[in-house]
């Protein structure tokens, strides 16, 4: 059976990071993968302008951006009435790598979190996850975002509870 592939030329990215070296690295990796539509923003205001104009499929953002942080940008996309797409896949790619940041990002509705420094393998897996394995969304009083419960994996054995 032929393996599933991702045609990155069909995916439009926005990278938000104030560090030009970091932005350039992500740009180079995405180009290597075949992406042809990659927008870049060094600050969150420009990012929102690009997002509002439409045509972005995946947002990759650093936490440490200004004038509003990557977390606030995430919050605006998920919860603002002005949001262009509340279900936009968002990867938080940040040097704020400590566990409390992971929890905060998850609770604000991030799709995937990846700590810097990162490996290309880990980055690729996050891309696969947001593009090829989309998750259901939860709309509750205090949360709007991807279902925080990870999908159930078929364990390969009999479903004994169902038989019960």
């Amino acid at each position, binding site marked *: 059976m032929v393996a599933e*592939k991702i045609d990155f030329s069909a995916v439009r990215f926005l990278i938000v990071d104030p560090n030009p070296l970091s932005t350039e690295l992500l740009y180079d990796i995405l180009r290597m993968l075949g992406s042809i539509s990659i927008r870049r923003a060094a600050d969150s205001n420009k990012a929102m302008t690009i997002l509002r104009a439409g045509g972005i499929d995946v947002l990759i953002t650093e936490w440490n951006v200004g004038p509003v942080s990557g977390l606030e940008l995430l919050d605006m996309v998920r919860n603002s009435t002005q949001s262009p797409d509340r279900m936009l896949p968002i990867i938080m790619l940040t040097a704020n790598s400590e566990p409390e940041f992971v929890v905060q990002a998850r609770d604000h509705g991030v799709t995937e979190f990846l700590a810097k*420094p990162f490996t290309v393998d880990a980055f690729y897996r996050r891309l696969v996850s947001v*593009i090829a394995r989309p998750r259901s969304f*939860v709309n*509750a009083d205090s949360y709007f975002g991807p279902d925080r419960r990870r999908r159930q994996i078929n364990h390969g054995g009999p479903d004994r509870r169902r038989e019960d």
Partner: protein
Amino acid sequence: MPKAQIIPAPMELKRRAVNRKKGFDINPSPTDLAKIEAAVNASADKFVTAFAAILRALRGAIELAERDPTMRDMVLVEVRERAFDVKGLGGTYKFPLMSEIGRSLHMLTGRMETMNDVQLAIVKYHVDALYVVLAQRIQGQGGALEQELLVAFRKAVEKFG
């Protein structure tokens, strides 16, 4: 009890991008990963050049802070931002030791509002250590000496950060 609405996963992007003919395998082979890794390696020289410039600028800023204590707040902001960059990028370019020193420097400066003489000296030691790692191209975690240095930095951060 509050109710949560479950919205089915959006499938439009998957329908558009996932196929069996064109692109990168969802489970990439080592060869595929090596191709992606090549993009990182291709920009490694730019990283070394850019960080050498950043470290030179930091040394200049620290000298300024030593001469003129009124400049320390400004220098502190600069050091904190650059430490965050080093922490985030070093390891990706196979300089994990640089990321660890950057992490230590970011922790040290993250809680400070200004710098006294001792704190400024510790900042300077961090920048000097980063210089050595970069100048000697110490990739990987370094040896026993480098690990001892990290332990010493950790203790200094706990005490003076």
